[in-house]
């Protein structure tokens, strides 16, 4: 009633957010990197399942393994943040809730990366 402009007129000329291509490329680059890293993670889980603390300390003391975990953590948290962003944008239509969900998505990915990354450094550097 108060606004006689059509929905199309309101958005004409505003254009896209101009971030789509960067998102697309980052999604693919991290996906490719996740193939060897994901396989290594499965091997790590299955080799350590049921083994004790000392076994895992020795495992993580190997620099190749701790660097692999760091790569996995940062690539994985970046990749999952991009993916969850698309899921939220597809299903959450209320603007306020969407912003909150996107914010939560970013915070979650960073907290996971910080906790897991710091733990790997502590184990790898022998703290």
């Amino acid at each position, binding site marked *: 009633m108060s606004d006689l402009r059509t929905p199309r007129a309101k958005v004409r000329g505003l254009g896209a957010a101009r971030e789509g291509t960067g998102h697309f490329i980052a999604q693919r680059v991290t996906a490719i990197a996740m193939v060897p890293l994901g396989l290594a993670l499965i091997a790590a889980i299955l080799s350590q399942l049921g083994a004790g603390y000392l076994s895992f300390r020795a495992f993580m003391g190997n620099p190749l393994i701790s660097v692999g975990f760091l790569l996995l953590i940062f690539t994985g948290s970046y990749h999952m943040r991009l993916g969850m962003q698309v899921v939220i944008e597809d299903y959450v239509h209320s603007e306020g809730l969407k912003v909150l969900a996107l914010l939560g998505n970013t915070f979650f990915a960073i907290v996971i990366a910080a906790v*897991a990354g710091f733990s790997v450094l502590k184990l790898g550097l022998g703290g």
Partner: protein
Amino acid sequence: MADAQAEGAGRPRPMSPHLSIYSPLISMVMSIVHRITGVALFFGTIILAWWLAAAAWGPDAYSTFMGVADSLVGRGVLFGYTWALIHHMLGGLRHLLWDTGRGFELRTVDRLAWGSLAISVSLTLVLWAVVIGGMGGAS
């Protein structure tokens, strides 16, 4: 969205049919499963962070974690997690193939969908059989 349409056009526009009206096709089911496994892996990183943080915390925290992870329920969750990771990975490789413009023939799409499901399930089963078999031999 409905409000905006009503405001602009004066009456609701016809909507395109949605998921509920189609009979499930394997390509469609695998597309949905790809998204569900992605979301599951997202929340599964909590377990990964718990695992690493418990080890950084010390022996007691680690044995608490391993007690849960190596229980029947824990193994079930980890089995699901490894399957989701393998399945999502194969789904992702399928998408990378499609990104090159290849593999869009209907027959190929169906084969890729069934193939990724068959490989993810059998590979996960083989890996876990090796783990359980190996542990039985060691203890």
